[in-house]
């Protein structure tokens, strides 16, 4: 995460406005790029120093510092030493304990089989600032530097957030899944405006104090949000000891990370594939529309829909690690949602509670692989009497 001094943003009507880089910054960014290219073969600290100095085209100082920081993180560097620097240090400083400077260099050089100049050059060649610049990655464009810098800035701001609220449409489940994987608490309610969802994200300790303990986890949401059809995020960010509101929305010029994985586990992925092979009359929909359960929304794993009769639809939930309380809560949610056609596929090996299952659940136990045929048997058997 980028350091606080690089958080270029302004305060407008109490709201933080990130100083995102844009196309109009390209002229001075080009200079920054050129400078980095020119430093090929030089020490990394020299590159850092040069990128901090004024450029041929005037640049806003904080934004230049931000872009330089991100560019440096992408520049490749290598160690250039005649022999491993740790050996050089051991030889030279050991000799210097007994000898004067020139004699120490001569002895170290002789011991290592290199020249005194090489001793000097190799002494700290392994330090981060002493490594030699190889160059800017060939596939790095000005536009991608802009987007990467913006993402770094937005994530650093979110990293200082205590709570986040996101209104999201499309792919909401991926966001919820990601939040839970990162140990966040996430409440989901239907959006007042459309068929989207409102996610309130925080951590357990947030109940007691304004904490940035979850900042890193919150910051990792951004790349996932970017894959949603639409989102609007608002966060309370603590900056210079004060809390400010930050708003980000669809279209924010951020680097697009790889698409989040569609499945929570290999079991889910395999189940999806298996159903596709054996259920010719049925379509398995990954992450169907969320279902309203009282005040909240629940996200079923799959919906199994008959291809010719849209009214014949089931929800399928794959449950890995579980406790009785968890299952009861899950079933209560579905009951609240008045969902009768639900199949729970539960991993036998991962269960941690020996108590009986709550009544009313259609349960299919599995070990490592959910038997798609048996799921279909249940569906067909239940449907048959109708």
């Amino acid at each position, binding site marked *: 995460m980028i350091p606080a*001094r690089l958080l270029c943003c302004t305060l407008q009507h109490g709201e933080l406005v990130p100083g995102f880089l844009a196309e109009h910054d390209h002229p001075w960014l080009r200079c920054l790029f050129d400078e980095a290219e020119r430093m090929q073969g030089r020490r990394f600290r020299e590159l850092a120093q040069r990128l901090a100095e004024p450029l041929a085209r005037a640049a806003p*100082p*904080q934004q230049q510092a931000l872009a330089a920081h991100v560019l440096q993180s992408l520049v490749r560097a290598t160690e250039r030493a005649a022999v491993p620097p*740790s050996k050089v*240090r*051991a030889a*030279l*400083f*050991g000799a*210097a*304990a007994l000898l004067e*400077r020139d004699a*120490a260099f001569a002895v170290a050089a002789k011991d290592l089989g290199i020249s005194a100049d090489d001793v000097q050059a190799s*002494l*700290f060649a*392994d*330090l*981060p600032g002493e490594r030699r610049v190889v160059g800017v990655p060939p596939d790095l464009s000005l536009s991608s530097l802009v987007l990467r810098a913006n993402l770094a800035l937005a994530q650093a701001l979110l990293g200082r957030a205590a709570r986040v609220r996101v209104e999201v449409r499309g792919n909401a489940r991926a966001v919820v899944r990601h939040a839970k994987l990162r*140990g966040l*608490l996430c*409440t989901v309610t239907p959006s007042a405006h459309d068929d989207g969802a409102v996610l*309130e994200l*925080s*951590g*357990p*300790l947030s*109940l*007691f*104090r304004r*904490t940035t*303990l979850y900042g*890193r986890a919150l910051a990792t949401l951004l790349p996932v949000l970017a894959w949603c059809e639409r989102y609007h995020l608002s966060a309370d960010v603590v900056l*210079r*000891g004060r809390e400010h509101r930050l708003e980000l929305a669809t279209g924010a010029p951020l680097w697009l990370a790889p698409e989040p994985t569609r499945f929570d586990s290999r079991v889910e992925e395999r189940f999806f594939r298996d159903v596709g092979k054996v259920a010719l009359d049925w379509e398995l929909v990954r992450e169907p529309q969320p279902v309203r359960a009282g005040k909240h929304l629940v996200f079923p794993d799959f919906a199994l829909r008959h291809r010719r009769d849209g009214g014949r639809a089931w929800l399928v939930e794959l449950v890995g690690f579980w406790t009785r*309380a968890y299952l009861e809560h899950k079933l209560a949610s579905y009951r609240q949602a008045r969902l009768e056609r639900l199949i729970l596929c539960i991993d036998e090996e991962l269960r941690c509670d020996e108590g009986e299952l709550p009544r009313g659940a259609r349960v299919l136990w599995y070990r490592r692989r959910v038997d798609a045929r048996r799921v279909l048997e249940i569906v067909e058997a239940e449907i048959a009497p109708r």
Partner: protein
Amino acid sequence: MHLNFDRGTLVLHDVPSSFSPASLPEVRWDARTGSWRARACAWSAVRDELGRRGVPFQDRVATRHAPTGPWCAPALRPYQEEALAAWDMAGQRGIVVLPTGAGKTKLAVAALAETRAPALCLVPTRVLLHQWVATLREAGLERVGVLGDGERQLAPVTVATYESAWRQIEHIGARFSLLIVDEVHHFAGGARIEIFEACTAPRRLGLTATPVLDDEQLERLVGRAVFVLGIRQLQGTFLADFDVVPIVVELTANERQRYRELMAPFLELAREARRSMPGARFEELARAASASREGRLALEGLHQARALCALPEEKRAALRRLLQRTRDRRTLIFTGNNATAYAVAREHLVMPITCDIGRKERDTALAAFRAGRLRCLVSAQVLNEGLDVPDADVAVVLGGQRGAREHVQRVGRVLRPAPDKRAVVYELIARGTMEEGHAAKRARALAGGAVSSHDGAMLDAQPAERA
């Protein structure tokens, strides 16, 4: 009713309708999850209160641990015995203040051996992480958990860096019943205090060389100072006698001119702040300043002025003379930053001990220093705290960034007692610069004064520009 640990908090499940947990210590209703919740650190208080009221509950937080060990309890010096007894008397909670070199880690091992409790030991750096692991193994413990420096292995007694503990505490906070915090003063002011909140351990031992004042939060979460002993009280007995020799150097005309130019915007800012923010600490001033371009430039000027004072010409010359004079004595050089440490290393051919130097090489260098094959080491921070540095008897302080507390720690590095030993601490101070004010505060702290939690910041707030 069940009491569960949930990511650094306690959650009460299956609460009977006849009972309201709202009156339990720290317990609040969490509408996000529809459950009653408290910080994990309230575990023993909640449990005791439920027991006192006769409310039946199942405690799923408490895991039964076999006693840790085997331990070879270390032989303690009388003052260490007293410190341990004071901690016991305070309900095995509190902070012990002992000078550097007085055996704080040994005291911690004694506490571990006495309680045989599963424990999490927090240390500020990776260097100290490995030193603690080695110490615990020497004390007879076969399996020691390590969290940090790329390792993630949990055991009933685990050593963790602050950084790793901060990231993992949500998951491991219920595994231990004793929390030992080395260099606990780092938590003054509330930084990363969540580690203490998210941990259920009721027994807590904080260790430091400098007492922390005015920090109620730290007192609530770790305990009050239960035992305090300063350097002066052990000097000549369990710590070596020592002299502090300030060496005041002049800046050259060019350096002075540059220093004035660099400091001018900051001094103007500080003058203005004294009017508009009376009593403000440096960090508040810096925070306000960083909101404007002028303020940021003033702070940048201050940083550059500091860098200029780090190794001006006369300090280099004085250091050369000192190293010639102390050629036969083991010497530690302390700098304000790594760049200065490397500059000294290149110029005087002194082995640097910094965060960039790998563990193996560092250990080899310390062993060579111990054996006398290296006579001198230079470091910015790594040698400041805790690290078991072999018998050095001369310290040269070229500069520092962390105020009086850091200085007390550094002086402690040369106080390991030896027959007829008299250690010397040389402080090189640039005349007419902010360093004069810093040196005065360091002297006061060394004389036995406690250090407030804002110590380092206060030092920086008063640059002594007299020229």
